[in-house]
């Protein structure tokens, strides 16, 4: 059935983690009977286990629904899900660019959070019609009056007719759908113009190749068309196109302006079909691509090593597979004296990094060790060369450095007013520069700081949460480089540098970090056959030192009646134990020691 454009609504849902976006999406799916009850597992749109568990959306996703409105007409609803995290800001902006409206879900007790606001601004910038809804009104802690005020004060939207809903129970969800019909404008665009389609997501399918999700802005695309991806210039012949349903793809002969759907064209690599790129027709190309495309570059790097060195090949394979669906993930081989063969991986941010690490462990069953996350430092050497360093091992000697710079971010922290002191203390500690503070309402505050990115990647989010009992929310964007007095801190075990433990730190914080690291390592490294000095050094100068004492006795004296079984068992047990150890020189270091220094207590 072909729908007139007036009966199409393209929208997305914006919400903070846990504010109920996925639950609302599920209710909408149910109400539109897009999914049978049988197929309905909670939070259908979040495909990955990880997404379900963490309650966050990692990738955008889209679904086409049919809704019969109270006015008697049927509408096509294209619901485009957006990732809910700052790391994926760009993807969010592209998903929003595919819509005309956005449902803003605000938790009735929590109110507006930093990420919600950031995404709402993105939606407003993209010219979307915002439909605020207040969710979880069935909770005893709900305070709809306060939250309504917040919506009016902070976002500047009228909150008079905000639907008060419970996505969990389904209460008033239908009102939300009616609001979408009446408030979200139908898509515009001209089907007769040359094709312009926005890629807002893609995934790799082993049989079909890359499946791209598009919003057709102008023109039309049909089977057999030769399409061109305007950023890369690559051309492909359309093999299949159609609509996206909750549980299947519906093949169509063509997609036309205003519609949302998928295209396959035997595209081998996801890097050929980047999110944000414009699809046009090769024979009749659009003169200009859609605005807003940019390549996303990783900003956080860390080494990823297999615990078991023989799993190096498996790790490579897993990373390759993950990269099929994640153009933002980069990796290249690196070797560490301490950890052997592994990869230097680049990520969009900390969450992205954690997600990849978790997926490697869960979906690919790999035990991995990761090194401390690093940002990209810009070093101007004395000979005038400028180098970008994402691995402390490659950091030039201090004598060769004329100027060192580090990336800085503009950060917004939203927090109840009671915690302002704690936040300022934390930001001060993290070398933050206070920018601004705004009251969102009488007891909620938006604090703005400029923070070095290397302070953010190092345990900042956990600290933020613990200092505000979980109430703070946080958003940041990288704004550029700033000169900084940086030093490379090396850790020596029994006199040998452990390359995997080296890191770059601001000079003023070096001593404190060095001391904590040495203490932590002392705690984590079991007693050895001999005394092991742990030293933290800057350019050969020791600034902190601890000692792991030697063991004094470890002997099975008696071996009665030729019972050597016991000794063999002991040896087997030791063999198992050694698997959890890394040999550094003659010192055995437990694998978890490498991870433990990623989070040091204050």
């Amino acid at each position, binding site marked *: 059935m072909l729908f007139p454009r007036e009966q199409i609504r393209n929208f997305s849902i914006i919400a903070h983690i846990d504010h109920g976006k996925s639950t609302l999406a599920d209710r909408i799916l149910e109400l539109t009977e897009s999914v049978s009850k049988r197929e309905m597992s909670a939070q259908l749109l979040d495909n990955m286990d990880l997404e379900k568990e963490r309650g966050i959306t990692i990738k955008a996703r889209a679904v086409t629904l049919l809704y019969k409105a109270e006015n008697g007409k049927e509408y096509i609803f294209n619901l485009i899900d957006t990732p809910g995290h700052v790391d994926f800001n760009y993807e969010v902006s592209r998903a929003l660019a595919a819509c005309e409206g956005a449902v803003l879900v605000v938790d009735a007790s929590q109110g507006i959070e930093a990420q919600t606001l950031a995404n709402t601004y993105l939606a407003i910038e993209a010219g979307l019609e915002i439909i605020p809804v207040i969710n979880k009104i069935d909770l005893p802690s709900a305070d709809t009056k306060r939250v309504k005020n917040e919506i009016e004060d902070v976002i500047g939207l009228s909150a008079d007719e905000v639907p008060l809903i419970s996505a969990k129970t389904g209460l008033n969800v239908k009102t939300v759908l009616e609001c979408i019909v009446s408030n979200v404008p139908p898509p515009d665009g001209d089907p007769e113009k040359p094709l312009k389609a926005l890629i807002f997501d893609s995934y790799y399918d082993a049989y079909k190749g890359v499946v791209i999700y598009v919003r057709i802005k102008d023109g039309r695309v049909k089977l057999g068309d030769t399409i061109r991806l305007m950023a890369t210039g690559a051309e492909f012949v359309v093999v299949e196109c159609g609509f996206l349903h909750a549980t299947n793809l519906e093949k169509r002969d063509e997609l036309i302006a205003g519609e949302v759907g998928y295209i396959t064209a035997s595209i081998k690599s996801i890097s050929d079909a980047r999110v944000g790129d414009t699809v046009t027709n090769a024979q009749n190309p659009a003169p200009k691509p859609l605005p807003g495309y940019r390549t996303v570059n990783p900003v956080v790097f860390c080494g990823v090593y297999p615990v078991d060195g023989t799993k190096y090949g498996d790790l490579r394979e897993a990373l390759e597979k993950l990269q099929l669906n994640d153009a933002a993930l980069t990796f290249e081989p690196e070797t560490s004296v301490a950890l052997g063969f592994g990869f230097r991986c680049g990520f969009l941010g900390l969450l992205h990094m954690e997600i990849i690490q978790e997926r490697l462990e869960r979906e690919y069953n790999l035990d991995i060790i990761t090194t401390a996350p690093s940002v990209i430092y810009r070093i101007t050497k004395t000979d005038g060369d400028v180098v970008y360093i994402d691995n402390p091992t490659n950091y030039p000697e201090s004598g060769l450095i004329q100027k060192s710079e580090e990336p800085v971010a503009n950060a917004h922290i939203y927090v109840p007013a009671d915690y302002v002191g704690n936040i300022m203390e934390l930001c001060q500690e993290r070398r933050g520069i206070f920018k601004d503070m705004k009251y969102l309402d009488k007891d909620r505050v938006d604090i703005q700081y400029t923070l070095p990115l290397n302070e953010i990647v190092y345990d900042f989010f956990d600290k933020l949460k613990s200092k505000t009992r979980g109430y703070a929310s946080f958003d940041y964007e990288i704004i550029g480089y700033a000169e900084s007095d940086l030093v490379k801190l090396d850790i020596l075990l029994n006199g040998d540098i452990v390359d995997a433990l080296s890191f770059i730190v601001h000079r003023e914080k070096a001593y404190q970090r060095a001391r904590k690291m040495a203490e932590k390592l002392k705690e984590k490294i079991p007693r050895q056959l001999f005394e092991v000095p742990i030293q933290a050094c800057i350019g050969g100068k020791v600034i902190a030192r601890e000692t792991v004492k030697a063991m004094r006795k470890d002997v099975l004296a008696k071996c009665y009646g030729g019972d050597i079984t016991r000794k063999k068992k002991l040896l087997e047990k*030791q063999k198992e134990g050694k698997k959890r150890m890394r040999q550094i020189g003659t010192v055995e270091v437990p694998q978890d020691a490498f991870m433990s220094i990623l989070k040091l207590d204050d």
Partner: protein
Amino acid sequence: MKPIGLYIHVPFCERKCPYCNFFSTTKITNEIVDRYTDIICNTLVKYKEKIKLSFDTVYFGGGTPSLLGDKNLIKIIKTIKNNFKLFGSEITLEINPTTLPIVNLKQLREEGFNRLSIGVQSTIDRELKTLGRQYSQKDIKNTIKLAKIAGFTNISLDLMLAIPEQSIKSLKQSINFFISQDIQHISAYLLKVEKGTLFYKNKNKLNLKNENEESEMYLFLVSELTNNGFKHYEISNFARNGYKSKHNLKYWNSKDYLGIGPSAHSFLAGRRFYYQRSLQKFLSGNSEVIYDGKGGTIEEYIMLRLRLSDGIKNNLFKQRFGINIPQIYFEKAKNFQKYGLTVVDKSSIKLTNKGFLLSNELISRILL
């Protein structure tokens, strides 16, 4: 086939010592003891029918083997002699110091027993009491004297280190006594609190030694004994010239031995196996033998030989395995030489006394 070792496990004790977790029972009757003796003899005969064996060492351990009584001990030794060739055998019997002799040592000596291992542990009455041992220093003296009168010229005494209440001073007293007794061999063990023992249950109440004290006592013992003419030939064993325990050396050299009796271990024709830890099963005559894997591998050999003060030697290694000691072991062992734990030269690897004290970890670091 070359002569091998024979071990007879006698699982009877008058009372259970609170630190001991060896397999033994205190519920003994004449009937059980006789039945046990018969099964041992039958088993020996069965082995004879199955494979051609000869022995050059026989060891009666336990438990308290003397509780079998002269008659049964002689019956077993006669069965051995009648069915197998014994080549210049070292035949050892474990006994405990007692107030009154419970076996006729003279008669046993005449029947072929030629080595006694006496479970002395300490000569300090207070320490003996802690260990639940029912004899005094005087009884120890008498027992040794009787052994000598009976004609035993190869006597070994057990000494325990790290007994609660023990001090370097009291240890020295025990050591001095041992040295003064004109005996040939000393086995000295650090007390280890084993699961399932009374000591384990009470371990928080016992004044147990810490690692530093244990290490100090061990090193003290080694220096005292070696200064007094004992050769320290294995982690826990010391002998006058010519009196190393031939039987125990079979264990450390990864040589063949047959063990009979509940919980007794064997290493025969490349296989390790042991009897179930059940007297009842054994007495019923159908105790199962549990296969315990391949024995005599390079790894196992190194693990065992490194307990000897001679360590591993290239010529012996080559004789046995047809190859030189793999270089990797030399390299690993060398790492610990500068810490005084190993001595490595071109053709051998040895542990030092300090190395012995850390041998579990050290051997695994060399092997793994």
